[in-house]
């Protein structure tokens, strides 16, 4: 394959956009692991249900209006639909995650470590089955909402073959503010401080008057909401919804979280972009059939050689 600068930029763009989606999911893993030291196996499937709900919204609302598809809606209405779907997916996935914590994980908080992990696998199976019944066994097309306009050549008039469409812009507009917003929330607000305190030492935090159950529920709410947004972004960007998408993407995101040092919020976001780029470069310059093996091999190598992640975090070493 002829490697041109334009191809490189194109692959970079794809990697960054997919990386932003992975980063959103990775944040959920890292938040939850940071606070309850549980690999929330079901997180990838919460993300999958976010895509399913978004798909239902963007096909059902236009059909209510008697239209064949969302792209026929007038622009303001379309924008309202995207925004409404985003909020709905975030609320739905956030509450779902809180419910999972309440019913499946909370009772096992002091149990041997294997118990909640196995429960999480069980919850993951239940959610996968819900997805299977909701949209069937084969991948479903997620419709394009926006006209396929190339911003670089068409709007800015640049002389380039690199494509960057409205859709790509929309996905970045959804994901990046959320990633930045979460950073600010965790670092700057009182609730964020309570979350960090609980992650550091649950008992001491409780003595200082922090409501542990509420803080943990809030963490699951935030993680789930980000997964919901990632679910919509994933559907929009890849035009696909599949009941089993949560498994692979969940593992990618977990790899990203580990790469950034699990428990480290900034690290997870950066890790997401690194994994997105790695997958995109492997797809284009190596062989897409090997991408999954490459990412998982990277996961094993990081865990073996730098289990605290590339950025590192003292929390990761806590036994």
């Amino acid at each position, binding site marked *: 394959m002829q490697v041109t600068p334009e191809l490189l930029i194109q692959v970079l763009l794809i990697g960054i956009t997919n990386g932003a989606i992975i980063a959103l999911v990775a944040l959920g893993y890292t938040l939850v692991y940071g606070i309850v*030291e*549980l*690999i929330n196996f079901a997180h990838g499937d919460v993300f999958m249900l976010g895509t399913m709900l978004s798909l239902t919204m963007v096909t059902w609302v236009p059909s209510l209006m008697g239209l064949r598809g969302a792209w026929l809606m007038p622009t303001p209405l379309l924008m309202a639909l995207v925004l409404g779907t985003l909020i709905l997916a975030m609320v739905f996935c956030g509450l779902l995650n809180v419910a999972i914590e309440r019913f*499946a994980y909370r*009772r*096992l908080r*002091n*149990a*041997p*470590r*294997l*118990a*909640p*992990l*196995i*429960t999480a*696998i*069980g*919850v*993951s*199976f*239940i*959610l*996968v*089955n*819900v997805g*299977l*019944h909701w949209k069937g066994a084969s991948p479903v097309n997620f419709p394009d909402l926006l006209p396929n306009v190339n911003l670089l050549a068409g709007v800015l008039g640049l002389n380039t073959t690199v494509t960057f469409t409205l859709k790509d812009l929309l996905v970045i507009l959804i994901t990046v503010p959320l990633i930045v917003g979460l950073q600010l929330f965790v670092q700057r607000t009182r609730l964020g401080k309570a979350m960090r305190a609980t992650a550091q030492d649950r008992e001491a935090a409780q003595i200082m008057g922090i409501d542990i159950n509420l803080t943990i529920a809030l963490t699951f709410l935030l993680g789930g909401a980000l997964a919901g947004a990632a679910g919509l972004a994933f559907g929009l960007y890849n035009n696909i919804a599949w009941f089993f998408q949560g*498994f692979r993407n969940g*593992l990618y995101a*977990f790899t990203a979280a*580990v790469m950034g040092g699990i428990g480290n919020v900034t690290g997870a976001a950066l890790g997401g972009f690194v994994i997105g780029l790695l997958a995109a470069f492997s797809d284009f310059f190596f*062989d897409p*059939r*090997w991408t*999954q*093996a490459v990412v*998982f*091999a990277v*996961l*094993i190598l990081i*865990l*073996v050689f730098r*289990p605290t992640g590339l950025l590192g975090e003292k929390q990761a070493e806590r*036994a």
Partner: protein
Amino acid sequence: MAEHPVRFTPPGASPFGVLQTLLREARAQPKRAWFGVFLAVALVYPMLDRQVLGPWLGEHFLGSLNSTLILVMLALGLNIVVGYAGLLDLGYAAFFAIGGYTAAFLTSPQSPLPFRTDFWVAMPLSFLVAALFGVILGAPTLRLRGDYLAIVTLAFGEIVPRVFLNLETITHGSKGMNPIGRPHGPIPQLIDGSLQFGQVELLASDQEAWYYLIALTMALSVFLIVRLRHSRLGRAWMAMREDEIAAASMGIDLLRTKLLAFAMGASFSGFAGSIFAAMLQLIDPFQFDFSISIIVLSMIILGGMGNVYGVLVGGLVFGLFDRVFADRVTGWLHNLGTALNTPIASDFLKWVDLSGSKFMIFGLALVLLMLLRPEGLFPSAERKAEFHEAEEPTEAEPAEGAAAELQQRPAGGAQ
């Protein structure tokens, strides 16, 4: 035992007397009695299948039972890793695949190797190769903490089938390898109701013979595993599972002990893999996906981690539900719905689809078991105690009492 002074009285001359003695023995040692019943049923079962259960459960029931038993054999191996040593392995199917492909490489005419062996050579070699890969994966990763290890094994379990899928020149990719060397030898066969021996090659249709081969391998595995459990190594595994630091301070080499658990666990799946490949006569990467790892793990959890007999029962229940009863029961419910012909109940019964909801049922089973009975249905005593540690009365109460006593003493009394 003192209440049964007549235990060793010789049986009476009449058949009734024999029965009476047997019953008394059974009451004295219920566990052994159940085991005896289990063995007897296991031995005669294939002869009854065609006549008794076959028509009821479908013609292919014995075949489904055989593939279930192979999964149960995997569960026995995984039980060493998860149940005894307490290491969560989420990619166990990888070793199953390695065992199966080893058998295929050694015996299939499609193999790239310059030589061929027969099944009886390939089977122990699969055992060894799987153990070798257990060491290769374990050596760098067993230092990791429990949940990190789980993820590493999960990633390994995803990589291995993908490698077999992508290396098309060697493994024929998604088409798989076929045929694979069959077991041969003087195998007892039931022909027209009488037992005959002859130099035979096992065909896929010889379900009875496969059953006995699998059952024999399983009995051997159970024997080895039970002996292992009571050996020095087995006790080291359990000590390590309970408390790594305490175990290490008692002189147990943690890494070596974990590595042996990984290697031994993997090796039994090598057995299972070679039999699986030879029975199906076809091996492809899709037979070893994540769901196999999870089904085998669920078998252990359902049966009770760390207890071989619990794993056997849990494995059979879980596996047969997966392979046979999910479909069968759904059919029965639908028929019942048609027969009842009442408005709401019939619609509900016809709507139920257990085989389409297998994942949901497995998931619910895992969650409910962990919440309500984390030690599984038939746990080992140690494992049960471990999961209920938090509920036992701690020293907190007597300590508080002592503190209260101290406070009640006059202040000057302390000096």
